[in-house]
């Protein structure tokens, strides 16, 4: 199976600052990675994905960095806003089964006004 862990269960940032959420995975065969955001009372929502043949991908205010050598992902959120407060999950999936995702326990991002 896959072991997914986030470095910090909770991260507090000031509104307007940049946030960096880190994630480590154990399976070197992981080939596809998704970051999800889960707000209270809602299901996980897709933020951004990255394939293993890339090391960086940018979206709107978010950037994901992938370091396959050390099996590490990070999600960077620029100019963090109160609406970014949520639990963030990285979910790798293996090369032999792109349709199976493994979630860690998540990092709760608190944005202070």
């Amino acid at each position, binding site marked *: 199976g896959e072991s997914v862990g986030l470095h910090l269960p909770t991260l507090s940032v000031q509104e307007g600052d940049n946030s960096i959420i880190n994630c480590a995975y154990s399976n070197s065969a992981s080939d*596809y990675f998704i970051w999800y955001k889960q707000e209270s*009372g809602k*299901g*996980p929502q897709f933020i951004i994905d990255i*394939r293993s043949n890339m090391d960086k991908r940018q979206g709107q205010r978010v950037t994901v960095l992938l370091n396959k050598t050390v099996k590490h992902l990070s999600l960077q959120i620029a100019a963090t806003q109160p609406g970014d407060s949520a639990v963030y999950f990285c979910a790798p*999936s293996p090369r032999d089964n*792109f*349709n199976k995702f493994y*979630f860690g*326990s998540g990092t709760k991002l608190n944005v202070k006004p």
Partner: protein
Amino acid sequence: EAGVTQFPSHSVIEKGQTVTLRCDPISGHDNLYWYRRVMGKEIKFLLHFVKESKQDESGMPNNRFLAERTGGTYSTLKVQPAELEDSGVYFCASSRQGPNRAFFGQGTRLTVV
């Protein structure tokens, strides 16, 4: 495009009773997944359907859980008889074929008392 919908949003049942959760995936999505999050821990995979076939049910905790997807459309997850440790939030997700984001429903919060 309508999202993934789950019914009910919240269910409270007594230990030993039966509960059936329902998931309506996004139309055209062959892949349907069930996940659950118990005790605020990580979101764990339960099983994966491709159309009406169970592709992977390695995450089903025991034989008190039965998932079906008749006709390859909506799916049900039945817990019979429910135990206290089954309490948690049950998520359903769907996706198209291939390495693709999965869209999650809002979840069903199950409380067994």
